[in-house]
């Protein structure tokens, strides 16, 4: 039997990466698997993809998916600038960045803030476990107030809500998910690939070694119990001819940049993810209850991304021929004359 291929004729194997060196059961591995599924199912050419990361457990993971893609494991907390530069160089690339809660919320908060502001086309994933795994489990800035370390230390600082921050700062696709929720995460990742602009996806991804115990608010058990989905996310890519039937008023339909459709079946009254204020209010309400609002929290499918604002030529800047990047003799002469 011939292997399953996607719409550009590639097999799932093409989307795999190296063997993971993370702990068995690490939430990050599940996320890598979903990334592989999403890129395969969406028929993205791995040769056009760049994988970016900072430093930490999360940032190792780009080596474990899309082996045929270029990758750049940068310095701690600085992946946004590297990704920005790369996208400036070649706007045809599809950028996926993987960061962690420390890499984003602590050392990298500055670059994170400005990445969100710019609405650069990139899928920015935070593999969020509330602790520093590689250095043996210290709290990170997303650790919840009152959450307990294995050593019994209790976190006494409020968490940074990266989703609220991203919405506030201007990201145009903000979602939260749970590494254990295969279906939702896959739908979100596929929708992310259809979006043009910054996708900020915070995935709660428990650390089985340092933060999966009783008293931790980022353990598998705790997250399962406190996951509060905002909607049922159904994503239909532009190349699939599927009609979704739904009762009027029950589902919100969002048309994505590439023509794909998002059907968000409301699980509660009055939630509109295209409204910033509703989104922020909802995030704060769930947080107050000690829960996680998951799903698409905020989406703005039409805003110009950073590259559009820069009014770049259609071709990648990186490979423009000499005659387009070096002005002619008359230009230099004109400049020289102006200085005489």
């Amino acid at each position, binding site marked *: 039997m011939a292997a399953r291929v996607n719409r550009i004729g590639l097999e799932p194997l093409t989307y795999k990466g190296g063997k993971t060196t993370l702990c068995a059961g690490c939430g990050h591995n599940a996320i890598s698997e979903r990334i592989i599924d999403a890129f395969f199912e969406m028929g993205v050419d*791995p*040769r*056009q*993809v*760049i*994988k*970016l990361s900072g430093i930490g457990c999360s940032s190792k993971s*780009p*080596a474990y998916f899309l*082996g*045929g*893609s*270029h*990758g*750049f*494991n*940068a*310095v701690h907390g*600085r992946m*946004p*600038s*590297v*990704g*920005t*530069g*790369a*996208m*400036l*160089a*070649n706007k*045809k*690339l599809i950028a996926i960045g993987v960061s962690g809660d420390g890499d984003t919320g602590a050392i990298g908060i*500055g*670059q994170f*803030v*400005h990445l969100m502001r710019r609405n650069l086309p990139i899928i920015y994933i935070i593999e969020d476990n509330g602790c520093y795994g590689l250095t043996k489990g210290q709290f990170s800035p997303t650790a919840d107030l009152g959450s307990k370390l294995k050593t019994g230390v209790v976190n006494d600082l409020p968490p940074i809500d990266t989703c609220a921050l991203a919405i506030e700062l201007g990201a145009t696709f903000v979602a939260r998910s749970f590494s254990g929720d295969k279906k939702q995460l896959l739908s979100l990742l596929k929708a992310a690939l259809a979006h043009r602009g910054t996708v900020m996806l915070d995935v709660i991804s428990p650390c089985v070694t340092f933060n999966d115990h009783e008293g931790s608010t980022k353990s598998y058990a705790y997250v399962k119990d406190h996951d509060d989905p905002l909607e049922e996310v159904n994503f239909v890519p532009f190349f699939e001819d599927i009609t979704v039937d739904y009762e009027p008023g029950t589902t919100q339909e969002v048309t994505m940049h590439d023509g794909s459709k998002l059907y968000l079946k409301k699980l509660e009254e009055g939630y509109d993810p295209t409204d910033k204020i509703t989104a922020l209010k909802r995030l704060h309400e769930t947080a107050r209850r000690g829960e996680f609002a998951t799903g698409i929290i905020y989406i703005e499918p039409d805003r110009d991304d950073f*590259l559009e604002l*820069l*009014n*770049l*030529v*259609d071709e*990648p*800047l*990186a*490979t*423009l021929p*000499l005659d*387009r*990047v*070096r*002005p002619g*003799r008359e*230009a*230099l002469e004109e*400049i*020289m004359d102006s*200085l*005489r």
Partner: protein
Amino acid sequence: MSPTDLAVQEQQTSASRQRVVNDFSIQVATVNGSGSQTANLVLLRSILLMGVPVSGKNMFPSNIAGLPTWYTIRASKRHYVARKKEVDFLVAMNGETAKEDVLTLDAGAAVVYDEPLKLNALRNDLVFYPVPFDKLVTPVCPDAKLRRLVRNMIYDGILAKLLGIDPALMDKALQKQFGKKAKAVTLNANALKAGWDYADANFTKQDPFFIEPMNETAGKILIEGNAAAAIGCMMAGVTVVAWYPITPSSSLCESLIGYMKKYRVDKATGKATFAIVQAEDEIASLGMVVGASWAGARAMTATAGPGISLMSEFAGLAYYAETPAVIFDVQRVGPSTGLPTRTAQGDLLMTAFLSHGDTKHIMIFPSSVEECYEMAQQAFELAEQFQTPVFVMMDLDLGMNNWMSDGFKYPEKPIDRGKLLTEETLKRLGEWGRYKDVDGDGIPYRTIPGDGMPAYFARGSGHNAKGQYSERPDDYVDNMDRLARKFETARQYVPMPEIDGATGAKIGFVGYGTSHWAIGESRDQLREETDLETSYYRLRGYPFTSDLVEFIDAHERVYVIEQNRDAQLLQLMKLDLSTERQVKLRSVLHYNGLPIDARSISDDVLAQEGFEVAKRTTRISAGIAGGE
């Protein structure tokens, strides 16, 4: 004219008999933000239009408006463009500094001053020309709000008359300065005339300083090093620029934005063939450059010392992951915030080894605006050829001051993107490894995302020749040794030094960057005053080339001349030299924030050579203190 002035005239008669033509310096002391820069540039350009070699240096405060600022203009028939230590002609417009400005002058200097300051009472060995600026400006500038700006143009008119500058050429310079702004031209031309007329009616020439026409500046341009570097970047085909504003480098990127908008927008589509991003800080600036270079763009940033400090982390990543990057360091005075608006060559050692671990970087050192233009292009070639950061070490004096130059030459060579893997190379090599040294020069082949060639995972963590993560001792050593080999290869490709060997000279000078101009003048002084012949090695690139050793061997003593406290180049040289050669090195250091001058070098060398050197008590004002 006041009686005091007449008395001064008596004392000065002997001095004024000996005319000093096209060989003196003018210092204009004003208040920052008073529009004096325009008047100073008009004066500078009018001397240039007289055919007289000229240079201008701005000594300004770190302040937007209200603090004292000094601008010096030097006319030199011998083409000396370094700062002249002595001020010959002072224009004192700023009451706050006027007293000190006058007291620090050498005897015989001339002073044009704002009459109410009553400076003539301070000394009797100077020539004073009092000018009632406020009275003169009122009739030529009915708009009271503009008077503060326009009154400066009056001193240009006064100076034109006193020095003998053709008023028609000064008008031409004025038009150049204001371009198509007809109203501004008329207003300022009237101010010029008011100054000229006042001097004509009220002053008898008593000082010896004259500008006389020469034919030494035909076709010359006047440009700041930052703008020159920007033009070079554009001609090099830069496509991605990321920067963070910092004095004294901001005008490099700002000029670049101006030029790129004019010359690098596709006519047909109106779309840009470049991206220039003002980043959130210098860390992100270099991060963007590294990301862009990794993805195949020609990318650059420009900064100053504090930015270099912040960039250290990414410089190490670029060195180790081997991505090109072009970084302009327009050096200012450190440490820390230091003197942000003053010049130095104090970032050498830090930059040479920027970042932790065993790291070393290519540096190139332009001395002139022409070299800013040319070395900007070389920097991109080197960065791509060696897949590593290249630092262009400028300084505030070069970057922000106006320099006279021949017009820049159009680049004849196409761009060389270095070792990018192609289908043919891949076929020839059979197998590709990102960090494999297949040519023996330490330089591997690279691929870029989207080019269809094999992908790799760039990283700042340990890696083997294939680019895979590795903690193996042999992989680590192999890779580090290859990087060292690559650096060795660079010795043959960095800009070669300019060596001026004097026959029989026992003394050699080594210098770089803007020190060059003072060094040349100092060599003349030493030859003419004391028959001391010197050879000169002008360093233009790091790593050092082998002729440095030959130069040292050919001389008994070698003076390394630089603008920092710690003899940074000398320290760097020591790392490459045997102890026998190290002991030949002497140091001449200048680090008060002002551009180095020839007199300081000559006196220092003479003292070290055992000559009697007259104690010069000249204090330099040109700076503020206190006030916070």
